[in-house]
């Protein structure tokens, strides 16, 4: 198993938006950063747009290098059992904290949106009250790219 399947890689938005997409026939698209396959992403940035349509909350996070579209599935799955009920509750609470102008940390699965653009299917989102978390995230992205991600592709 590739360990990176379980890891939310930290990338600057411009780095994320430059990922290469492979669209094998009859299979889900796969995503690569300079030869290294990635499945999940963690980003920190400011919410610059928010739109609720039906059971989906769509919002865009701007980290200054790019804008990442994020989507949260708010479908109520409580009827499936207690675990699903708790999960629905958690998702709704987190979604309620997403407001324009807030600094948020988002983790999710990299997917392709309807128009083919890259987006994040949100696993969890939280507001960062300490504004220093943002420059610290930039430093993490740079450090991880240089010491880990660049090397993972070409060991």
């Amino acid at each position, binding site marked *: 198993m590739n360990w990176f399947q379980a890891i939310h890689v930290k990338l600057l938005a411009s780095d994320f938006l430059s990922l290469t997409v492979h*669209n094998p026939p009859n299979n889900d698209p796969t995503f690569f950063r300079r030869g290294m396959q990635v499945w999940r992403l963690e980003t920190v940035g400011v919410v610059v747009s928010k739109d609720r349509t039906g059971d989906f909350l769509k919002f865009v996070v701007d980290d*200054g290098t790019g804008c990442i579209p994020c989507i949260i599935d708010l479908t109520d799955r409580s009827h499936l059992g207690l675990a699903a009920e708790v999960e629905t509750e958690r998702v709704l609470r987190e979604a309620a904290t997403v407001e324009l102008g807030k600094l948020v940390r988002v983790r999710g699965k990299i997917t392709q949106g309807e128009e083919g*653009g890259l987006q994040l299917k949100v696993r969890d989102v939280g507001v960062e009250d300490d*504004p*220093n978390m943002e*420059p610290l995230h*930039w430093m993490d992205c*740079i450090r991880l790219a240089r010491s880990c991600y660049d090397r993972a592709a070409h060991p």
Partner: protein
Amino acid sequence: MMATSIIKPAVPVLLKEIESGSQFFKQGASLRVTGMLHAYSEDTAVAVIADANISFKINTVHLRDLSFRFGSYYQFIGELHILPEDVAILQARVGRIVDGLDPNLYNQSLQLRRQFESELVNS
């Protein structure tokens, strides 16, 4: 196949970098600016922020749910509107209070990030 985003990011800049002749001084440029609130007019919704002795005007008419406290640090994201005689104002889309932001951490991180981004582009 490379995928791209439709929405333009707001480039973080220091107030001293927004002046006639700089690469950031373009009509409609999406910028993110940071500074301490020095003045605010409820009539015009214009706020003035300052950083390192440079002050800059922000049109906050579209902002909601943001309180204006003199002496607090703010970050605004919006588009640069250049008026005659190279006077500029930012038409803000979003704003937030960033009290507690370490200016050295922010400035140094921004410089390191710009360096990293240019390395990515050139590689």
